[in-house]
């Protein structure tokens, strides 16, 4: 099985706050992994380290065969800026707060990075972008501005924007947490569709039933450690660790 991402034993502290205490995750092609856990468990930081928004203090991060970071002689060494830019095209990230560009139309939000970062042909990019928007159910919103859209629609644009760069792996950072409850469904449906297309995805989420339904593997994090990891039916149906049980119990209430 082809390995897309391999994280080994990464540690991360913010001052005295030791957030990640040696996390290892491996993601294979076509896998959908959900990361659950209470806030402060380190799951968002893990995602930010994987997407290079934060630099790990130690440990290694490897995309395909490229080591983005590894510990050499007790020092964490990252690739040069230039090489990192190449690696960035391997992954995409969907934010909790969407982070669309408010001054760009929906279509331009989706098209701009492929054109100005990947230097691809404008006509081809536009065709693909319209196709993506159609897939997101937003083909009639191409000329609208983000402020004219609902939260659910904005998040779907954000997903289209990430997909436009054709990443090998897509990260979601609590993609429905900022949405009104009645709008989460439309976003989850899109992610489910992507899962069916065998898109490799890592999703940090609080939607337990969604995580159970869509993932191949679930990771439960607590206090900077991976406490339990495995098949969703096992983790949700028959958790082995006491902390997992407690967390899920709190969630069901």
């Amino acid at each position, binding site marked *: 099985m082809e390995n897309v991402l391999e994280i080994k034993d990464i540690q991360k502290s913010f001052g005295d706050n030791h957030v990640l205490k040696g996390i290892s995750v491996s993601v294979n092609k076509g896998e959908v992994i959900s990361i659950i856990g209470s806030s402060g468990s380190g799951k968002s930081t893990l995602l930010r380290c994987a997407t290079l928004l934060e630099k790990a203090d130690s440990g290694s991060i490897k995309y395909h065969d490229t080591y983005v970071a590894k510990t050499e002689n007790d020092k964490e060494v990252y690739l040069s800026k230039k090489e990192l830019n190449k690696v960035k095209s391997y992954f995409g990230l969907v934010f909790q707060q969407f982070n669309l560009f408010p*001054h760009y139309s929906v279509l331009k939000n989706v098209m701009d990075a492929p054109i*100005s*970062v990947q230097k691809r042909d404008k006509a081809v990019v536009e065709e693909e972008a319209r196709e993506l928007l159609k897939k997101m159910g937003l083909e009639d919103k191409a000329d609208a501005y983000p*402020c004219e859209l609902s939260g659910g629609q904005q998040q779907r644009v954000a997903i289209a*924007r990430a997909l436009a760069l054709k990443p090998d792996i897509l990260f979601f950072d609590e993609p429905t947490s900022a949405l009104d409850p009645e709008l989460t469904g439309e976003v989850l449906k899109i992610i489910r569709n992507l899962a069916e297309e065998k898109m490799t995805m890592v999703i940090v989420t609080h939607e337990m039933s969604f995580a159970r339904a869509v993932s191949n593997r679930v990771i439960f994090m607590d206090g900077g450690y991976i406490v339990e990891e495995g098949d969703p039916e096992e983790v949700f149906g028959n958790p082995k660790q006491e902390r997992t049980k407690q967390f899920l119990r709190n969630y069901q209430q």
Partner: protein
Amino acid sequence: MSLFTMILKMSEGLGRTCAIFFLTILFALPLGMVVALLRMSKRKVVSAVTRFIISVLRGTPLMLQLLAVTYGPYYLFGFSVSRNKLVPVIIAFAINYAAYFAEIYRGGIESISKGQYEACEVLGYTKAQTFFKVILPQVVKRIMPSVTNEVVTLVKDTSMAFTVSYQEMFTIGKQIANSQTSFMPFIVAGVFYFVFNAIVDFVMGWFEKKLNYYH
């Protein structure tokens, strides 16, 4: 002196008033951005020095700065005083207004959410692309009301060029008022400034409207 002659004489200075106005805008707007970026520099020394300079420029009267720029080099180093007063006037105005614009820019830039930068980073934009394609356009929209404020003030501040005997409209008005012992030139000047600012208001309003396609 008839009112007509008065207006005619003062109009001669109006061209110089406009020169101060437009040249100040032309130089202060970009210079302010440079100052703002220095002010936000991660290098503590650079940012502290810039901060001090800004506080001096904002904390002392423009009139003093005009005097300092025009006559300072003469008194300190014996350089000759410029015959064409437009040069020191524009230098003083541009520096002074750049300090104000810099703080406006800084406020605007800092009001842009971290998420915009992170989105750019993940999408692979370079620093320059991030700034010019994503951040700056949003900053421009946000700071328009404050910039309009400064521009309106600038129109009135042009009269300060009198301090260094630059023959702009208000200077001429003052001379006429003095020789004719008449208050009329001040009324004429008031009308000039008001009309000037009405135009400025209109243009800036139009520009703000143009940027109103999103919020």
